[in-house]
């Protein structure tokens, strides 16, 4: 139904969308998630030509949207959009907001348009507000009217651009329940959202965008329960990380510890977790000590707010390092401490990098 190939968009020297390609089938409900400023809304606005792409192609039901001969307003009637900021006409009543476009663009007579508008307002639970004006409604009510107005044009595709971002948290659920009910009616929907539970429930497919590309996509259970790629994991598990580079055996242990303390304080980690983390880092660096004159080492501490877990990654470049060894001569006390402080220890060799990962045991 929507076929996008190699789509790109720049604002000045800033490349916001980079070579995006996707096929959206009829009836699919697609949620687009990802960090702020990563191109999600721009992508949606490009689909509707509210922002003009700099490259690539967009086909809607086989019609090339970027062909100068294409009747874009006609296409927009099939593909309507709900905005963060509602965009209702404040000088028109709710009923007029819903009837103006069907009368002017679809040629519907006023009575028919009003009957349909009332039906739609009933559907979103706002029939009693038909004679009110937008300023007399709450944010959640305005957004429900905006959705009803969008439906009044009988679109086949609805694009939602962060429909709950401008709402008071108490009003989010009323809007989401309306969108949720629409998802069961066979409409094709593309939803940019930060509501992860909603995206998981409502979507047939989830797209994770990062830095202007579709970084990972898949069914909700994959993206939310078992994301494959690092940045998706970091986003889904709400991972905050700390990095420290060690390039010499004479690294400053106390400066590093102070930075780890600050990181832990920011994440409000309990004192015992901080103590165990600092001990685990020192013990592991003791095992690395003899290598530090030959290789440089990057330490990453990642705290997942969602999982309430701390993971450590020690990555060295160059000579292969087998850190955890049971051979004689290995520091037995240090190893015992490491094993007791961790739930899991993993090792990987990727090209010229040795990577040791540890999951700190919960206290």
């Amino acid at each position: 139904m929507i076929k996008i190939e190699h789509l790109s968009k720049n604002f000045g020297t800033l490349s916001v969308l980079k070579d995006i390609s996707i096929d959206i089938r009829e009836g699919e409900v697609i949620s687009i998630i990802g960090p702020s400023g990563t191109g999600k809304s721009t992508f949606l606005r490009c689909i509707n030509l509210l922002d003009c792409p700099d490259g690539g192609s967009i086909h809607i039901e086989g019609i090339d949207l970027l062909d100068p001969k294409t009747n874009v307003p006609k296409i927009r009637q099939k593909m309507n959009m709900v905005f963060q900021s509602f965009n209702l006409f404040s000088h028109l009543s709710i009923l007029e907001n819903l009837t103006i476009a069907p009368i002017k663009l679809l040629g519907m007579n006023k009575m028919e348009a009003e009957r349909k508008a009332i039906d739609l307002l009933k559907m979103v639970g706002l029939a009693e507000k038909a004679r009110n004006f937008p300023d007399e409604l709450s944010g959640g009510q305005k957004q429900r009217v905006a959705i009803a107005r969008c439906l009044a044009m009988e679109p086949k595709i609805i694009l939602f651009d962060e429909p709950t971002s401008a709402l008071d948290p108490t009003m989010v659920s009323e809007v989401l329940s309306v969108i949720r009910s629409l998802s069961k009616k066979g409409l094709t929907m593309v939803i940019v959202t930060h509501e992860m539970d909603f995206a998981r429930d409502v979507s047939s497919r989830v797209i994770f965008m990062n830095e202007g590309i579709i970084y990972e996509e898949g069914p909700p259970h994959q993206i939310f329960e078992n994301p494959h790629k690092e940045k998706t994991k970091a986003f889904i598990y709400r991972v905050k990380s700390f990095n420290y580079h060690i390039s010499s055996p004479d690294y400053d242990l106390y400066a590093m510890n102070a930075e780890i303390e600050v990181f832990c304080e920011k994440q409000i980690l309990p004192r015992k977790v901080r103590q165990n983390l600092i001990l685990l880092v020192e013990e592991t660096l003791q095992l690395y000590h003899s290598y530090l004159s030959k290789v440089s080492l990057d330490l990453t501490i990642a705290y997942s707010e969602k999982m309430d877990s701390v993971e450590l990654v020690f990555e060295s470049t160059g000579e292969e390092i087998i850190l955890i060894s049971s051979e004689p001569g290995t520091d037995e006390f240090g190893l015992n401490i490491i094993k007791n402080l961790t739930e899991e220890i993993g090792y990987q060799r990727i090209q010229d990098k040795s990577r040791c990962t540890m999951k700190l045991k919960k206290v």
Partner: protein
Amino acid sequence: MILQHNKKMEATIVALEGRMDAITSSDYEIKMKGLIASGERNFVVDFEKLDYISSVGLRAILATAKQIRSRNGKFLLANVHGSVKEIFTISGLGSIFPFYDSIDSAMAFFV
């Protein structure tokens, strides 16, 4: 780390304060070597004010214990509590040393 020592009856009490880690453990070793070289044979190490110990510190403790025992001296640990005691335990070193609840109970050994 702050190290203080004083002689009481037959033993020298060495009090540790702060952190015993990859950097500070050598201070302890130097101090203990000096005391052993000056003829001290029996020691009680007071952990009351030690907040942190790593395996480097544990190895330093074990090394001095061996040195003292090879000279037929006594090496006792007192006031090992909380996270420091836990580290002794999980490292496996806790089973090697008896812990004394107080300086007095350790000193009773020399009476």
